[in-house]
């Protein structure tokens, strides 16, 4: 059966669409809001901001997280910053430019109207966060500071040291806490969504497992909002938190929601390289470091060897023997090319054998020039004439420390090397997933009454997300989009009485959930969940990682099917269902990751072009750049899961009325 995908993008000129739509949108009156219940799953930037705002508006909100506290959601780990078209720097920024950069950065695979709305509300987000007490970095004059990020030529990124995600999340968490205290939001910590309950085609509730007791519980509402994050952990090793998972979204997919563009994954260029096979996760070094760090590998293989075996220190290699390959290949953007371009260039350097660590999978990120430059400028400011090298270095290190101190410290803790004295070693790692639940302009999925916000939807980043845009999208969706658009659904529900959890749909969803958990725990096989998750990750990284090809993807599909069959016959889950059992929590999530992996591979195989984070080896230009095929692939690939056959593809054509599709060039 074909599903009609109506994006519901309003009529009118691009820059007027949201304003006009918002003004004419159906509303829910305050007396009705008091009766209407909303479930929000997830408490990251999108979930916490949505739950808080919907609570402020007067709805009865129930909010769920699997964490012990809403403040632990993985938005907290975002380092670099949040974009907004404030143009405080007077450097030519505008809503249109942010829109354009985001569309171009996404390699022309996102919806114009959604992205323009994102750019419009970006400025409100900064105002809101300042009012909430987010301690953004400031200049000496007391005004907000900005820095630049990859893929753009203006400074529009607001930041709070290297902990912007933490501060924005705490802002949203505090707003949420205020609503919890007032009784508008009921908070359920350590409760994980295990199924979506659909009644008469509408999302009306969820089945959750109380992670403390293991008991299954039913919750009903007039509609359900998912803000459950991305699925990068399908690769096992990623910069995501250990608990980040796809299950809430995947349970929705199993109930009929479509997954859009699942193959669009972002590989972040600056992460700490893998050090051993016991490794549980990868650590990101913020992209903001590329403002001042220069990426290089040695020109000569003999120098590569010498650095690897420790006979040559990288800081001692003379300038002319280094290949600053990003500056060489992309002179216009240099070290600040977008993430996908930087990652592929690092891979290319390592594929040539230039990798600088023992595994051959690392490149340098060097701050020596920045330290010298800042040192000289500080000396000048402080009236020091003819400063010696030591003074310059000391002053320069001070500036670098003020900007990136916590990142440098983190690097040293993990690697034992001092990045002020020797270049950092970095390598790309899975970081963000642009794909996600298909949503229309209202952020509603194809399942009526089911909304998806933040990283768990697909809507704004196309095939590649620009730095400092995830925080922007999460908060835009939660603070400034869903509070309005949810009315398009709820205004038709004002006569619907409270939904009862006695409905047979709840009973059957609960029974299915219990049966699935019982099955998992009773397999009592030989291999741990962790062992399977690692195997899954290796397959995904090998065949559906930084570059993909048809042959590999077909092979991966088979490997994944076999792995899934093996999982359901040989996984070893200790303990019981009705108790606190972190291994069972994990087993449930990994089972869903396996199915998602298959869908990702199908999507990657279908998309016979290279765009953004999706690089198909068969489709590249002569000099190795991504080759998009706009005639055939300018569409959103929305996939319907099928238990018995391959996933079914539904297409939403992407129409560009305002920007011309160009080959993305950062040269």
């Amino acid at each position, binding site marked *: 059966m074909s599903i009609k995908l109506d994006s519901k993008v309003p009529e009118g000129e691009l820059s007027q669409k949201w304003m006009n739509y918002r003004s004419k949108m159906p509303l829910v009156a305050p007396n009705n809001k008091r009766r209407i219940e909303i479930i929000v799953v997830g408490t990251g930037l999108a979930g916490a901001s949505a739950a808080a705002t919907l609570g402020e508006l007067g709805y009865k909100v129930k909010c769920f997280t699997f964490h012990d506290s809403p403040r632990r959601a993985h938005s907290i780990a975002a380092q670099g910053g949040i974009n907004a078209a404030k143009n405080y720097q007077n450097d030519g920024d505008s809503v249109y430019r942010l829109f354009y950069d985001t569309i171009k950065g996404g390699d022309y695979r996102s919806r114009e109207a959604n992205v323009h709305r994102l750019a419009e509300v970006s400025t409100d987000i900064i105002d809101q966060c300042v009012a909430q007490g987010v301690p953004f970095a400031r200049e000496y004059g007391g005004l907000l500071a900005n820095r630049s990020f990859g893929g753009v030529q203006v400074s529009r990124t607001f930041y709070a040291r290297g902990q912007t995600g933490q501060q924005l999340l705490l802002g949203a968490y505090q707003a949420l806490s205020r609503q919890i205290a007032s009784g508008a939001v009921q908070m359920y910590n350590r409760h994980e969504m295990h199924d979506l309950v659909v009644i008469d085609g509408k999302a009306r509730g969820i089945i959750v497992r109380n992670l403390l007791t293991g008991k299954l519980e039913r919750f009903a509402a007039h509609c359900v909002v998912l803000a459950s994050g991305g699925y990068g952990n399908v690769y096992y090793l990623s910069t995501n938190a250990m608990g980040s998972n796809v299950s809430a979204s995947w349970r929705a997919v199993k109930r009929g929601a479509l997954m859009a563009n699942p193959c669009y994954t972002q590989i972040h260029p600056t992460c700490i390289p893998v050090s*051993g096979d016991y490794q549980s996760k990868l650590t990101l070094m913020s992209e903001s470091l590329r403002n001042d760090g220069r990426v290089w590998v040695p020109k000569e293989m003999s120098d590569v060897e010498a650095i690897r075996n420790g006979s040559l220190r990288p800081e001692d290699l003379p300038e002319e023997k280094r290949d600053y390959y990003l500056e060489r290949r992309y002179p216009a953007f240099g070290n600040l090319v977008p993430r996908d371009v930087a990652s592929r260039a690092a891979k290319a350097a390592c594929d040539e054998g230039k990798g600088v660590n023992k595994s051959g999978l690392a490149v340098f990120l060097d701050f020596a020039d920045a330290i010298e430059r800042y040192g000289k400028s500080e000396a000048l400011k402080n009236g020091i004439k003819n400063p010696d090298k030591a003074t310059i270095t000391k002053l320069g290190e001070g500036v670098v420390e003020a900007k990136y101190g916590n990142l440098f410290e983190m690097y040293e803790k*993990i690697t034992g090397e001092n990045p002020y004295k020797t270049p950092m070693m970095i390598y790309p790692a899975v970081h963000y997933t642009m794909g996600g639940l298909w949503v229309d302009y209202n952020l509603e999925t194809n399942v009526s009454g089911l909304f998806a916000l933040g990283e768990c939807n697909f809507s704004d980043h196309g095939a590649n997300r620009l730095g400092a845009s995830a925080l922007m999208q999460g908060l835009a969706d939660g603070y400034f989009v869903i509070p309005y658009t949810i009315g398009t659904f709820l205004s038709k529900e004002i006569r619907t009485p409270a939904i009862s959890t006695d409905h047979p749909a709840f009973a059957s969803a609960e029974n299915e959930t219990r049966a699935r958990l019982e099955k998992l725990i009773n397999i009592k096989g030989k291999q741990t969940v962790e062992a399977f998750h690692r195997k899954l990750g290796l397959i995904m990284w090998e065949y559906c990682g930084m570059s993909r090809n048809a042959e590999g993807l077909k092979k991966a599909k088979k490997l994944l099917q076999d792995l899934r069959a093996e999982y359901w016959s040989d996984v070893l889950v200790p303990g019981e269902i009705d108790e606190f059992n972190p*291994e069972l929590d994990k087993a449930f999530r990994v089972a869903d990751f396996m199915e998602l992996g298959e869908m990702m591979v199908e999507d990657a195989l279908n998309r016979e072009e290279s765009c953004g984070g999706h690089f198909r080896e068969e489709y590249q230009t002569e000099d190795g750049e991504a080759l998009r095929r706009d005639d055939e692939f300018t569409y959103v690939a929305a996939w319907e899961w099928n238990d018995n056959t391959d996933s079914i593809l539904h297409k939403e054509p992407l129409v560009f009325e305002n920007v011309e599709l160009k080959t993305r060039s950062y040269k």
Partner: protein
Amino acid sequence: MKLTLKIWRQKNNSTPGKFESYQVQANEHMSFLEMLDVLNQDLIESGKDPVAFEHDCREGICGACGVVIDGQPHGLLKGTTTCQLHMRFFKDGDTVTIEPFRAQGFPVIKDLVVDRSSFDRIIQAGGFISVNTGQAQDGNAIPVEKEDSDASMDAAACIGCGACVAACPNASAMLFTSAKVSHLALLPQGEVENEKRVANMVKQMDLEGFGNCSNTYACEAECPKEISVENIARLNRLYFKSSLASE
């Protein structure tokens, strides 16, 4: 390296716990939690109950992890969470004692996992600025002195892990509470509600069963984000002002 681990095992809050010993093979590049992962894989494969411990981001920011290692919350390294502690700080043959954060306000859930929801309730009592979405003026309308903004950020860096409580002989939550009070008090946006905020948060802190502060500064010494006890002094000043205002 080969280590002997003495780990606190406790089935739940109503069952008494005890230390049990384990052997584990680690290497210097592992993080402390990866070393525990290795132990748990061995335990599961040999049909035993894995050690429950809390963790998530593993990059020192979410605040989920935290155990007492050889008597120190988050271990020996200054300014470091448990997940960022690496095994190169241990040596072959070491015996390492691992316990949960112990405090009346943090009941044990299982093994090394404790319930820190008391921290959420302290924030709910007033750790916010009362502004609804959409009410804000332009972000640059009120300049904030860089020094104040930086000091606010220093306090706001708290990750809510609870090491301060675990370190304190009185299991006081003053460093945590004062960090939030300071973060907001130092900004013009937050200053408006200072007196009400501090009174309500301190009241909730007491209700949760946390002890009083007796200025041992153990909290500051063990805080993985090196939050300063100056924040406690600021809380005390504001609390004093607040109590005068309410009389």
